[in-house]
């Protein structure tokens, strides 16, 4: 794309673009910067001596780092009992994201490139899970996975074999599969949007130049869909990082505690709200890394397209 579009008439007034950006800027200030400052004010704030609820301290000069130090010193080392939960979170989220991608990419590819006339119906079916809340879908799994639930009945062929699996007994597998199931629709839609945008002419050119279907995919479609893959992975990873009720509902066992569970129980425990704030900030710092990656990839994508 050329740098400047040719324009007719007089140039836009100087205030126009800042004015148009104002709602977005205000949105960021109100819903991102202010809440993060509140989280910091609680993290470095004090505690009400009677009810043990947090009292935010607004002036950074008066901030007290005790709560942060408490959490920090327990991330690793001899006292590091938070460490395993953080590693576990990374492992669960990583595995679930890979599984999501393995499921979502072929589906999105099919919907975007092959489905043709069935595309409308397929898209409606893909969006359908959004009509039901995430929590309701997880609760449905609780029923299906119970010891005498449908899943075990299928596995044992209606009680023919004695291989009943205790799915809800605190298994990492169940939590990872739960996360995968819960977030896969969030992965499919951005992938579909990305794959659908790839111009058919590019792919036709690949085929014309002698590549077979797989080679075309590997050398044309895949490189061009990479920004969409990164977007989709980030869109699913970030909410998964803070998820706690998948583990709560499908396991309820400390052995599958994720960082979301640590935050949730710290918020509900008198005197520990500051620790929850510490985890929130740590999580934010960790999630900035994939955000940076996203910005880089999309910028590169723009560059290759021009």
């Amino acid at each position, binding site marked *: 794309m050329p740098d400047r579009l040719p324009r007719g008439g007089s140039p836009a007034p100087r205030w126009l673009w800042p004015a148009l950006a104002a709602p977005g800027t205000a949105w960021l200030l109100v819903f991102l910067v202010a809440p993060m400052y509140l989280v910091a004010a609680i993290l470095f*704030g*004090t*505690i*009400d*001596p*009677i*009810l*043990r*609820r*947090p*009292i*935010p*301290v607004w002036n950074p000069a*008066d*901030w*007290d780092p*005790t*709560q942060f*130090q*408490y959490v920090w010193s327990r991330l690793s080392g001899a006292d*590091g*009992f*938070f*460490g*395993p*939960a953080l590693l*576990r979170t990374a492992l669960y989220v990583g595995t679930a994201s890979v599984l999501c991608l393995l499921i979502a990419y072929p589906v999105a590819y099919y919907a975007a490139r092959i489905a043709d006339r069935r595309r409308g119906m397929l898209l409606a079916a893909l969006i359908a899970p959004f009509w039901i809340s995430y929590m309701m879908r997880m609760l449905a799994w609780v029923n299906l996975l*119970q*010891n*005498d639930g449908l899943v075990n009945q299928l596995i044992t062929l209606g009680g023919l074999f004695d291989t009943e699996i*205790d799915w*809800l*007994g*605190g298994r990492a597998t169940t939590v990872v599969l739960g996360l995968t199931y819960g977030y896969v629709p969030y992965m499919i839609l951005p992938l579909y949007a990305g794959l659908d945008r790839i111009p058919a002419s590019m792919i036709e050119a690949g085929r014309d130049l002698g590549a077979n279907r797989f080679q075309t995919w590997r050398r044309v479609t895949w490189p061009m869909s990479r920004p969409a893959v990164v977007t989709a992975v980030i869109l699913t990873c970030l909410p998964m990082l803070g998820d706690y009720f998948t583990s709560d509902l499908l*396991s*309820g*066992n*400390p*052995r*599958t*505690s994720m960082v979301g*569970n*640590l935050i949730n*129980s*710290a918020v*509900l*425990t*008198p*005197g*520990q709200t*500051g*620790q929850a704030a510490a985890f929130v900030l740590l999580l934010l710092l960790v999630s900035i890394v994939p955000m940076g990656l996203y910005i880089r990839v999309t910028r590169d994508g723009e560059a290759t397209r021009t």
Partner: protein
Amino acid sequence: MKQPGAWRAVERDISRRTFLKAGGGVAAAAGLLSACGGGTAGPGSPNASAVQIASPTNPVRWPIHDDVPMIASGLKPEAGSTLKIYNYADYLSPRVIKNFERDYSVNVELATFNDTEEAIGKIASGGLGYDIYFPSYDQIGKLVAAKLVQPLNQDYLANISSVWPQFTDPWYDLGWQYSVPYTTYTTGVGWRTDQVNTDVASLPNPYDALWDPSVADKIAIIDDWHVAMAMVLLREGNYDINSESSEDIALIRTRLLELAAATDPKVTITMYNDLPAGQLGLCQMWSGDVVNAVYYLPKGQRPDILRYWFPEDGRGMVDNDLMMILAGGQNPVAAHYFLNYLLDEQVSLANFGFTGYQPPQNVINPTRLVEDGYLPENLRTATVLPEWFDSGTRLLGMPIEVEQQWLNVWQEFKAGA
């Protein structure tokens, strides 16, 4: 809004501090000042207790604040008003609520919470306008000191005469100025005979079953730090379940980590559903929940597979929940009528039928709950006897720095390291 928002907590705290100094019930001005000044609020930091701790050996008469008055006598609930009740889920019979609405021409709105700490946080944040709250007795001190509850006008509560005498002048609220009793319960061990081959009750120490992978898999303990950790001490034969000793707390930590390694328990409060559904085979359990569990058994499942153990001598956790009227509610008159309604013999029996939690009513003969059809024979052990409130152990409030040590251990256990 009667209560200011969370961001006004600092200002609110100053008035509280003034009150506490003037009231003289606290020897903690230094702790308060340091906590308010931003000095030492970290976990485990020395912080003197801000609220007096009531116990059977230290009965407390809570102060009445001039700015939180009780209502006048002889008033009637406003017809068409909406009474807001804040309670655990499934802990109040819908039919009882409906009958109250019909008899007094008011609407009742029920909101629920998962644990009382979470509930107090929401009440204190203000603006929710709940009228009635169902706390445990160790929370009265905090609620009174923070001016979140109002004193009861006993003229409206004639039905108090029908409850066990222990609760008409209880140590946790001398003169029952702020609270009336709601239910009683014990905390023991529940199990299913089709999943557990051992008779847990006949073990030398039935609590051991929770630590023994050969007795059962699918084990759970109650998701409440004090209830779960107190059980660890009771297993050791230590009846000081509010211990301030660092050695005791360290021992609890060791035993909890052993528990996690041995039987990998779930930590939940939904035993009344999970045990009958077969998700659990053995769990720490409240007596009311095991009674309730009978109604959650799948169709065709015989109810006699459920069992419950509590020490026969009553030396275990014996507790009662309360009803209190919140200062931030708009319908204190209707709230008084509702409390009196639930203290009524017949109403509380109907409520017992729904919740499974035994009300402390004189009309109930605790030795005849099975014969009178309130409990099945196999759950006779879920009966709560009045004398156990003298022999049993009680979960009490703790000094903040001690509570913090307990909470740190619980946090470590729940992080699943």
